[in-house]
């Protein structure tokens, strides 16, 4: 890293301080503990654990994923152990390992979100709540909030009332104007917004003329969606002042830099973690080198620094 003044990789999301801006995306990193053998979890900026309902969920039958050009579809159906088993079985290890744990929560009703938030607020080691109101793969949960401005506002303000943890609604990209959802979330008291969740999509096996996913439709993630996700982060940056956690197809430090420059304070990495579970150190190194090369003191100075003045003004 040379002998220059060390650059500052830490970022702040509401009251939450992250050592670096790289967070494992929900549903792409299990409950975190699965990676504890391979990685030092405390070196990640944060870990958004797999979406949790109040109770256990079975999820969809296989096939649950299919690769598509530069991306993948998933319709896992939020299989999960439920919040109580999570607290009992996973949180102790996450605490022990020093993971900055962001709990991604899903409900079928507003009351369930509130209940989940209440329960988790008392749990040591929970750093923030990410409200999954954007999962495209299940009928009953979340997305009816995420596709309505009122729904978004209501669920955020209801959760806001019962917790002092940072509240981070996760926005769906499957809307006409994502910035208006960021605005609704901010007005309802969100500490930050995260985006994007996956794009509703499908793939067909032309030999059998059947959907490739048992759930028929699934969510598209991976590099394919990155240009749309960057645009959405940029639009939200114009609309709100709260921090934005950007994601969608990040597979390298350079990809992450697009999001910071567009307006994200931190980023999540999902699909690329499947391809390279050791990506985290590479992201940190790449960002550090970039900041040093450009003599930028820290991530904060980079956020939203896109220069859109015409080239020959």
């Amino acid at each position: 890293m040379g002998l220059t003044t060390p650059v500052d990789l830490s970022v702040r999301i509401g009251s939450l301080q992250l050592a670096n801006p790289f967070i494992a995306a929900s549903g792409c990193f299990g409950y975190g503990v699965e990676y504890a053998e391979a990685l030092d979890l405390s070196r990640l900026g944060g870990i958004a654990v797999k979406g949790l309902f109040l109770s256990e969920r079975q999820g969809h039958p296989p096939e649950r994923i299919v690769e598509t050009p530069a991306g993948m579809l998933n319709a896992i159906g939020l299989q999960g152990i439920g919040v109580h088993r999570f607290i009992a079985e996973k949180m102790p290890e996450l605490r022990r390992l020093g993971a900055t744990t962001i709990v991604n929560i899903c409900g079928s009703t507003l009351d369930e979100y509130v209940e989940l938030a209440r329960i988790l607020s008392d749990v040591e080691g929970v750093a923030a709540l990410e409200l999954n109101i954007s999962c495209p793969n299940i009928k009953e949960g979340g997305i009816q909030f995420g596709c309505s401005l009122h729904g978004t506002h209501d669920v955020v303000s209801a959760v806001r009332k019962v917790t002092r943890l940072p509240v981070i609604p996760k926005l769906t990209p499957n809307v006409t104007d994502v910035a208006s959802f960021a605005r609704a979330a901010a007005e309802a008291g969100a500490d930050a917004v995260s985006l994007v969740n996956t794009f509703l999509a499908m793939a067909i096996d032309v030999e059998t003329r059947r959907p490739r996913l048992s759930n028929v439709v699934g969510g598209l993630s991976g590099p394919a969606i990155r240009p749309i996700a960057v645009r959405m982060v940029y639009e939200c940056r114009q609309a709100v002042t709260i921090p934005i956690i950007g994601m969608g197809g990040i597979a390298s430090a350079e990809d992450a830099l697009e999001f910071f420059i567009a307006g994200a304070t931190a980023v999540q990495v999902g699909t690329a973690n499947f391809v390279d579970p050791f990506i985290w150190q590479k992201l940190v190194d790449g960002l550090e080198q970039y900041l040093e090369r450009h003599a930028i003191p820290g991530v904060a100075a980079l956020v939203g620094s896109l220069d859109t003045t015409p080239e020959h003004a």
Partner: protein
Amino acid sequence: MPVDVEARVIRNTRLSPDYNVIALAAPEIAAVTRPGQFVMVRPARGLDPLLRRPFSVFEILRDEDRPIGITILSKRIGPTTRLLFEAAEGDTISCLGPLGQPFALPEPDAEAWMIAGGVGLAPFATLAESLAARGIRSTLFYGARRADELFYLSWFEQRGVRLVLSTEDGSAGAHGRITVPLAAAFQAADGARVACYACGPEPMLAAVSQLAAGFGRDVQVSVERVMGCGMGGCYSCVVPMKTPDGGHHYVRSCISGPVFAGSSLVWD
């Protein structure tokens, strides 16, 4: 603890127009892999294909007993296996592993039956070596479509493995599915202590599990599900495991498997 190795291709041997064995320099993986474990492989440089694919570790390569690499037995069915088929010496292939739960080895006084369908032969080379090292008598029941898709027969014979073969077209061994000679063997085995292992297409695993159950026996099956990560991160690779109430729940075959007791899974 899995490691990610940019493994150099030492050799790529084509066995048929579809099958190849590719030798990869990966001493870190070779040193610690146990029979039944797998690696997540990515031969592409760019984004196509994007995801890694799971492959059983076929052989452990050694240089005077020092593990230096592994081989993969691959059947060409899509983009990754095409790249593996076409890979040239000196290319590098990203290789993450070893992953998953290995086969449980039998007590020294048992014998072992390995039941392979097609490319399901892959986990049995390392298993055969482990069995031989323990002095356990083993038999390979090996079914394929045609005689020229039965590979590595002398390799197994050299290691003292008895072979029972079948082909769908009758061009070698018994005519038809491997379950036919296997049923006869179960019949004959009577009360003998036998550890059974199976790998192959899921209908074959289901049939073998049911056959074994009929004789009051169990089989360690190695299942092959589409895997997104191989590390427990994505929940794509689930298999339905029986629950006491007669239902099932989904377990991740990458970390709880790929080896399961055949009797523990729901076959449909």
